[in-house]
């Protein structure tokens, strides 16, 4: 039975990618709806398995670890698989109505979408460092293709810039993996962690960790390596931007977090953790400030992603050499931040896409008067904004609350300033969009009305993100599922 679930998670997206490559956009739409339902089912199936029996390692194709590829299915991985099913499903649904089937090149959306999904599942479940690299590259290449789907010179420039940054990041990560393999003769993350714990390895040079984290931080667009993100996320089609901001940048962060949590105590250091935290803090402040200054609506949302990613990097200082409870608190805060940002940001991008579709311009000041014509989309935008600001009861609030508690408990009070100031700045850029939309002084009263479903999808996502704070306990309990006693099947 578990075989079918794993096959469903990894094989179907690849099969669907090939299938949709053979059809046009309209047929691809039907096939993809079916695929999204299937993915949701197998994701829930995996969750049911893991809650019943605990986490496990799954050797792909029955080949054991040194030779074969081992997958690691634990609470955190399941949480991310489920999140992907929700967000990618919603974005796929939105895209099926949003993209114009008459433009012939839009038929490539579906194959790229499914390759992206396959790569994401590989990364969430991977335990083999090289396989994680392949998963990351699969994600990057399909994401770049999706950005280039816009087809114009601006989109291609953004896509190329994104591609070059992503490739360089991957190579740095791969160089780290190469050095790690030279040192340990193993590629399994849990195997390396075991070797480090057993204590019979001489000290590991910190340069390995620096190389891997530098590469991954570049792919996650950590300040000051964030320059590629706003053009790519800003110019892509709205469902694509939503996918990229919500899930793609999280993939490289997830690997960085996994590597740090498993091996950071031996391979990292206090200074490295503090440096990453400081860069994250700078990203929060600088990204929010730039978001406030942008003229184009989607650039506001894209810079907001740079800021929100910054919070995630507080994980590194808050889990290095602290007591178990503080570390768990920081991890829970990170997980909630990932989930709430993924839901809120996809809602925001989809809502922004509707607003742009409606007013026919991508500028913030063109939104004047739209509040009376498209209140639903604007409301979703605002609800998502509430979560980004970190107001209760949103998921963003719960995440920041946990991070705040972890910083106080570990005596690193300086992160408080980041958490408080970042919230204020995000309020500033959300309200700026609102202010523009309530301006009544306009002669335009012709607004295009998007399809009803297009407005419902961001609303659902925004409500999920808002409600996350209320159901934080059950969500975190999934993440906390540990490995079953036997360890195997």
């Amino acid at each position, binding site marked *: 039975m578990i075989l079918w679930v794993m096959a469903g998670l990894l094989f179907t997206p690849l099969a669907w990618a090939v299938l949709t490559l053979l059809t046009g956009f309209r047929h691809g739409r039907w096939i993809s709806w079916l695929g999204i339902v299937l993915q949701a089912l197998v994701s829930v199936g995996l969750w049911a398995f893991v809650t019943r029996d605990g986490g496990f390692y799954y050797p792909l194709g029955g080949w054991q670890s*040194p030779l074969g590829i081992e997958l690691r299915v634990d609470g955190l991985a399941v949480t991310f698989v489920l999140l992907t099913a929700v967000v990618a499903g919603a974005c796929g649904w939105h895209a099926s109505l949003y993209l114009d089937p008459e*433009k*012939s*090149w839009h038929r*490539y959306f579906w194959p790229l979408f499914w390759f992206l999904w396959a790569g994401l599942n590989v990364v969430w479940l991977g335990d083999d460092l*090289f396989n994680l*690299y*392949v998963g990351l*590259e699969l994600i*990057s*290449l399909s994401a*770049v*293709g999706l950005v*280039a789907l816009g*087809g*114009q*010179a*601006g989109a*291609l*420039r953004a*896509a*190329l*810039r994104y*591609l*070059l940054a992503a*490739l*360089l990041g991957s*190579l740095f990560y*791969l*160089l780290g*993996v*190469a*050095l790690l*393999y*030279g*040192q340990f*003769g193993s*590629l399994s993350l849990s195997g390396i962690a075991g070797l480090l714990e057993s204590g019979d390895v001489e000290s590991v040079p910190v340069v390995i960790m620096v190389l891997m984290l530098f590469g991954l931080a570049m792919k996650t667009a950590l300040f000051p390596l964030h320059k590629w993100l706003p053009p790519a996320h800003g110019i892509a089609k709205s469902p694509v931007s939503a996918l990229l901001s919500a899930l793609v940048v999280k993939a490289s962060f997830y690997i960085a977090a996994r590597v740090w949590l498993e091996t950071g105590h031996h391979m990292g250091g206090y200074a490295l953790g503090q440096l990453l935290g400081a860069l994250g803090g700078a990203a929060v402040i600088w990204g929010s400030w730039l978001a406030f200054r942008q003229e184009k609506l989607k650039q506001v949302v894209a810079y907001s992603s740079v800021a929100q990613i910054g919070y995630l990097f507080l994980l590194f200082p808050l889990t290095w050499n602290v007591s178990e409870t503080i570390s768990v608190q920081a991890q829970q805060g990170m997980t909630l931040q990932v989930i709430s940002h993924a839901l809120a940001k996809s809602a925001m991008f989809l809502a922004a896409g509707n607003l742009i579709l409606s007013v026919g311009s991508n500028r913030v000041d063109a939104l004047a008067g739209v509040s009376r014509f498209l209140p639903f989309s604007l409301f979703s935008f605002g609800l998502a904004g509430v979560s980004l600001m970190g107001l209760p009861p949103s998921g963003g609030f719960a995440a920041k609350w946990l991070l705040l508690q972890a910083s106080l408990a570990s005596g690193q009070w300086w992160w408080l300033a980041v958490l408080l100031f970042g919230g204020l700045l995000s309020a500033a850029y959300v309200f700026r969009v609102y202010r523009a939309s309530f301006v009544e002084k306009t002669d335009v009263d012709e607004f295009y009305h998007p399809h009803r479903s297009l407005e419902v999808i961001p609303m659902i996502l925004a409500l999920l993100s808002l409600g996350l704070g209320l159901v934080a306990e059950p969500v975190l309990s999934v993440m906390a599922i540990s490995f079953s006693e036997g360890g195997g099947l």
Partner: protein
Amino acid sequence: MTPSLLYAFAGVGLCTIGLYGFVRLAHLLRKLLAFNLIGSGVFLVMVGLAQHHNGPDPVPQALVLTGIVVAIAATALAVVLIRRYFHLSGQTTLAEPARGNDEGASQSGEDRQR
């Protein structure tokens, strides 16, 4: 200094040269070549260092084979994008065009099948 270690050092050298080119050169094709140079360097490190520590080892060889496939896929995608970008904008670098026409200018190029 074993020959394997020499490979690893050569790999580090290639990475450095490639990185320098990647950062300093503006022409997109040159950037792409620099990327390939870094890639080759990483592969050399991967095989050389593992052989130095563990003796002849098939695993890194298999990894490098996969890595080469990934690098070719990435290079192919980059070349297609660069060509298309050149057709649409007439540029070979990522420099932003003068303000104001960065979306308008590209509208004229009717999009054929990509």
